[in-house]
């Protein structure tokens, strides 16, 4: 029997908006994944450490403060440093369409902008992530 998919939902940086992160975390949990939520004000290093500790398959980053171009790539860099090369990373929050190509090039598998349905996020995890 293959293991369950483990998801880390993270809040990098100083942004205090956690409604979306919590709703997504709960939806993913209801969809059958194991979900850990980091809480607010995590540094990229802390997020990578938690990803290692919790042995996750996928990391979701939530950010509404405009610092995504600095913080999302920083998280990906820390994940790589920690040896987590097969972890899928997705992002969401207030992210202008025009920044998405840059974020994808930095290594994000998907970016979920305002109006995205929970089903879309669930399907992305289902279709792109394999449990170890």
């Amino acid at each position: 029997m293959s293991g369950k998919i483990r998801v880390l939902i993270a809040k990098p940086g100083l942004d205090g908006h956690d409604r979306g992160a919590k709703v997504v975390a709960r939806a993913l949990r209801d969809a059958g994944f194991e979900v850990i939520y980091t809480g607010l004000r995590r540094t990229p290093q802390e997020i990578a450490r938690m990803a290692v500790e919790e042995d996750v398959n996928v990391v979701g980053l939530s950010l509404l403060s405009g610092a995504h171009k600095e913080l999302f790539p920083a998280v990906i860099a820390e994940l790589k440093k920690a040896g987590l090369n097969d972890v899928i990373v997705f992002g969401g929050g207030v992210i202008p369409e025009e920044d998405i190509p840059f974020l994808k090039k930095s290594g994000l598998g998907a970016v979920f902008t305002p109006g995205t349905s929970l089903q879309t996020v669930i399907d992305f995890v289902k279709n792109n992530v394999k449990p170890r």
Partner: protein
Amino acid sequence: MKKSEWTEKAKKLTEKFPERKKEFVTGSGEPVNSLYTPEDMGEVPSSRYEEKIGFPGEYPYTRGVQHSMYRGKMWTMRQYAGFGDAEESNQRYRYLLNSGQTGLSVAFDLPTQIGYDSDDPKCKGEVGKVGVAIDSLKDMEILFKDIPLDKVSTSMTINAPAAVLLAMYIVNAEKHGVKRSDLTGTIQNDILKEYVARGTYIFPPTPSMKLITDIFEFCSKEIPKWNTISISGYHIREAGSTAAQEVGFTLADGIAYVDAAIKTGLNVDDFAPRLSFFFNSHNDLLEEVAKFRAARRLWANIMKERFKAKDVKSLMLRFHTQTGGSTLTAQQSDNNIVRVAVQTLAAVLGGTQSLHTNSRDEAMALPTEQSVTIALRTQQIIADESGVTNTADPLAGSYFVEALTDKMEAEAKAYIKKIDDMGGVVKAIEAGYIQKEIQNSAYAYQQGIETKDRIVVGVNKYTMEEKKHGELLKVNPEVEKKQVQRLKTVKTERSQKDVEAKLQDIKKTARDGGNLMYPIMDAVKAYATIGEICGVLREVFGEYREKVVI
């Protein structure tokens, strides 16, 4: 015809011609009947009027806190604004004042709100993004350049380090010859909601409450026209709560602040007249109007019966409103102009004292000049063209609105009682109760959207392929560099010895007791930075650790 006959007849018709939905509910999920009559307002309407509805400007203030309401004075049009550095924000403030807004409202960036300087490694990428970067008095001086602080009232959305920004505001005003006793404005200064809905806390609850009550005491002596706090429901609602929770949790926070202030030895009438509130204006117009009316009535009752306030000003719930940011869509963003117009009507029909209207592009970025102009014009059109300002509380007596007001009051009261039974808001937060309630409502709200029980036009109904949207505001990426440079300059130009001494004074007061506003004012005058001042306070008070509730 009697009501029961009508109901029978309507039922038969519904069997033949079904209604659009099985159940009709408000935006917050309250069931709505097909008909409301005088029966829904309780007993005999005329005696009920005196007790429950009353008169504008008179207890229990259901109908408004002023006798003349908007016939006397329009609400203050106060657009929340700020981005980049102080120069850019100063420009936007002067543009907004020239466009007819009647009060200022300052948005600070996250480093400032969380007590860090722009050069702190934790702040990479955050400087100037969600508001203006303020590191020291120098930035404040630039922020208010050419703005007459004796004529313009300023609201500052700052919480954990509110004492520092208030000190900077006063010192800057006095440098420009304005007496502190002439200053008008507000600081949000509401830490309790930060722990459950907004997230820009620094210190744990107990020292945070001390900072807040120090400010109450300081202002009652030094700046009597200043609103010392803006007890907020806006963010609680944005975090996903229902309307009743918005009122219940906000007034519970208010009770906690009044309790804390009284415990320090202040008399309730010394500070209560300068408490103010801040609510959301959401989609369901009639429910929102009921919400505002219920909040006023409930607070007046609490101040009179629970806290035995004697000054009538202590009983009046005065509030600022912001239209609900979370209702804005990125899809077909011009639709947001319509949403904001409806939400503006709700706030005005609800009797707000001050209003910020969101711009059409704010689901995606901070507003462009063009977008914020439309948002301001929305207020001006409703003020000058719609006629709803011609009389106080025009919806009073509506069977539906009165029934909803009663229901809202009862539900909010029940939340307050629950929190009282837990030992108050701080205990309720420690137990994760408020966070869980908000989260459950938020999840239910989103599930409604997923199942289409809740329609969001352009998102789950009437969707369409869109051309690229208009220009969005981009914060100058050089701001972080500029602020770091300015910090270096400030530090070389000031007396380092003086700053060290003043920081030690803050530390001593924080440790040993005394009103922190005075040593903070002295440190600010010496050009100590917000990071330095909050750093010292962090040493003494420690940092809050979030209780992660999921």
